[in-house]
């Protein structure tokens, strides 16, 4: 369409490019090395060794004490579903505490479970204007029948990092298990399961340059959790299903790379984020920043643009500039559904429809940010010129 010569990919919180090194590491397992990790013959042992190396790489990224604490899954959604469902299904304690800005993989799981008539219910904690959970709210929400607290490490729409260590301590004081969805943080900021003090942690490979359909659940040694996927007893009987060897190898390699990149990437992405924000704010009137300035993921910026609608903006940015970003509303049958996260931090629905999320990666360049700022001011002017609610 139109004159798109380039792609400026700023939707890395949605999914990322597979790193070249990752793809290369996977290729043998899409070729000659096709053995099954549970079999005895030579092809099988190559697969098994590759899976164990990957397990070490992931354990290394998370500072896990033992690599056996890492269980491979098909992604962040599965890891979240597993942690939540198995914590309450058929258990005596059936109350869950989450935050109101969790990803759908947590939120919908709780809602769907509650609807199934299994006598499961949950409390969704409010957040402040920056999207942060107040530890005192958690303390008040805990009940004698609370089985699990699940609060995300960082939010996927605005980037707010939650005080996990403090929250986990409060849960543990009451003997309640703590899970965190670290899908947005693993590989991006330090994630140390011991420092965080969590019992379970979800991650997803495709958020840090591994392929889609890969993920893991960290399960602290000694933590009891039923299987979610039953069958041949793979992953020490906790996650059955033939192990996705190429995927797992890619996940391991990506974890290794992310660990190497992390320290230099964090300040670089933080700087690019501030550059993007100041650039936009200087060029375009009535833009609001939804991502906190402090305690937020480097490389993520969520803004709302008054008098403009998200989808239209992102489509013009794509068509005319090859810029790939996300907007904060999704079209459901009947009307636009504004992001539950933006509503939770107090953004009014009418403004929330005009929100955009930029999310960067290792591959994002300063030149791309410059282009994006320029493109934004052009396209937003156009969209606003069409708008009946804008008379700038």
């Amino acid at each position: 369409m139109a004159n798109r010569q380039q792609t400026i990919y700023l939707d890395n919180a949605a999914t990322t490019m597979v790193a070249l090194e990752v793809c290369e590491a996977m290729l043998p397992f899409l070729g000659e090395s096709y053995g099954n990790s549970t079999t005895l013959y030579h092809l099988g042992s190559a697969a098994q060794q590759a899976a164990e190396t990957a397990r070490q790489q992931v354990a290394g990224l998370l500072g896990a004490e033992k690599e056996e604490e890492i269980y491979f899954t098909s992604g962040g959604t599965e890891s979240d579903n597993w942690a939540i469902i198995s914590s309450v299904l058929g258990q005596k304690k059936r109350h869950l505490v989450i935050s109101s800005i969790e990803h759908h993989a947590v939120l919908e799981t709780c809602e769907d479970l509650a609807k199934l008539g299994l006598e499961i219910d949950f409390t969704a904690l409010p957040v402040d204007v920056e999207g942060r959970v107040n530890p005192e709210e958690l303390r008040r929400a805990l009940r004698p029948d609370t089985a699990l607290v699940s609060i995300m490490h960082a939010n996927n729409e605005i980037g707010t990092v939650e005080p996990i260590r403090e929250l986990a301590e409060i849960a543990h004081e009451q003997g309640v298990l703590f899970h965190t969805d670290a899908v947005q943080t693993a590989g991006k900021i330090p994630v140390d399961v011991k420092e965080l003090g969590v019992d379970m942690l979800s991650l997803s490979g495709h958020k840090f340059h591994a392929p889609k359909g890969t993920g893991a659940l960290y399960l602290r040694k000694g933590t009891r959790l039923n299987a979610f996927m039953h069958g041949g007893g793979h992953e020490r009987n906790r996650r059955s299903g033939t192990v996705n060897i190429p995927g797992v190898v890619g996940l391991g390699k990506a974890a290794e790379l992310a660990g190497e990149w992390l320290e230099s990437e964090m300040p670089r992405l933080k700087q690019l984020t501030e550059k993007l924000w100041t650039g936009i704010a200087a060029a375009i009137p009535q833009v609001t920043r939804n991502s906190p300035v402090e305690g937020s993921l480097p490389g993520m910026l969520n803004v709302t643009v008054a008098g403009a609608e998200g989808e239209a903006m992102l489509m013009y940015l794509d068509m005319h500039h090859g810029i790939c970003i996300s907007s904060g509303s999704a079209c459901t049958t009947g009307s636009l559904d504004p992001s539950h996260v933006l509503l939770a931090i107090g953004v009014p629905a009418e403004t929330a429809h005009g929100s955009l999320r930029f999310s960067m990666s290792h591959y994002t360049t300063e030149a791309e940010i410059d282009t994006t700022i320029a493109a934004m001011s052009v396209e937003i002017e156009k969209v606003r010129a069409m708008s009946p609610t804008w008379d700038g």
Partner: protein
Amino acid sequence: MYSDKVMEHFENPRNIGEVENPDGTGNVGNPVCGDVMKVTIRVEDGRLAEIKCKTLGCGAAIATSSITTEMAMGMTLDEAMALTRDDIAQALGGLPSNKMHCSNLAVDGLHEAIADYRSHNS
């Protein structure tokens, strides 16, 4: 996701803006729902001589505003009142099922503008 026709109208939306001293105005939608449209018309000899639209909304909203103004231009008021959301969606080569409500909006806005005109002129 969108048809080529939708994309073409989205890329080059026709009849954007407001008719000066319009004969009728329709305001539909709601900022809370994310879509707002203002349709203004000029009527000459019982036909739509000018239609303009301002749209806050998604790609489908912009494309349907554009094609609706284009289709209705020159129609008699009765003809324009007979336009349905299906006519619009069809002219656009279809719309994703969750985007159908926007095809409603433009037609509604036009109908409201005509009703407004008629309320002054009958």
